[in-house]
């Protein structure tokens, strides 16, 4: 999230709307928005229908892979804030999808661990590709 915020101006140059989608309760979402300090729209999909429509699966093996456990152990050791809420589906995975103005998917990234997100540079590079510039709008 911090990475996205650092590139906010570049995203704005391409008129990109950043939209967060989560499956927690409205109460949890409000806490998340306050803690992280983002003003992007945050939509709630408690039944995870949209997650399924975009191919984001549930997986015990991937949700609690050694890399994920290592990530959280390091975060706790470094005293970084870690949200250990037990609310919601702990096995649900996430990711990022870049959708062009014409509704076509330009990039679909399936996150393997919490920090596995496409870099803002790779998203911006995708938007700059001539073949996709018109689709991106």
């Amino acid at each position, binding site marked *: *999230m911090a990475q*996205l915020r650092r590139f906010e101006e570049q*995203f704005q140059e*391409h*008129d*990109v*709307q*950043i*939209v*967060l*989608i*989560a*499956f927690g309760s*409205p109460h949890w*979402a409000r806490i*998340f928005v306050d803690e992280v300090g983002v003003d992007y*729209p*945050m*939509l*709630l*999909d408690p039944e995870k229908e*949209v*997650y399924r*429509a*975009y191919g984001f699966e549930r997986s015990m093996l991937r*949700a609690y892979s050694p890399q994920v456990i290592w990530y*959280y152990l390091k975060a706790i050791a470094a005293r970084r804030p870690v*949200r*250990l*809420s037990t609310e*919601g*589906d*702990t*096995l*649900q995975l*996430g*990711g*990022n*999808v*870049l*959708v062009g*103005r*014409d*509704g*076509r*998917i*330009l*990039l*679909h*990234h*399936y*996150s*393997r661990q*919490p920090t596995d*997100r*496409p870099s803002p540079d*790779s*998203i911006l590079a995708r938007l700059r590709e001539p073949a996709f510039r018109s689709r*991106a*709008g």
Partner: protein
Amino acid sequence: MSVFGGPQAPDFTLPDYQGQMFSLDQFLEDGPALLVFLRHLA
């Protein structure tokens, strides 16, 4: 794992945490949309 290019994005209408409804089409009127699907802990 990233997949580049693909089919039409499924449209959706979802509420925000204040109960206001938004659709993908609404966002696309203003430009491309970067949908960030959060997982449980991050």
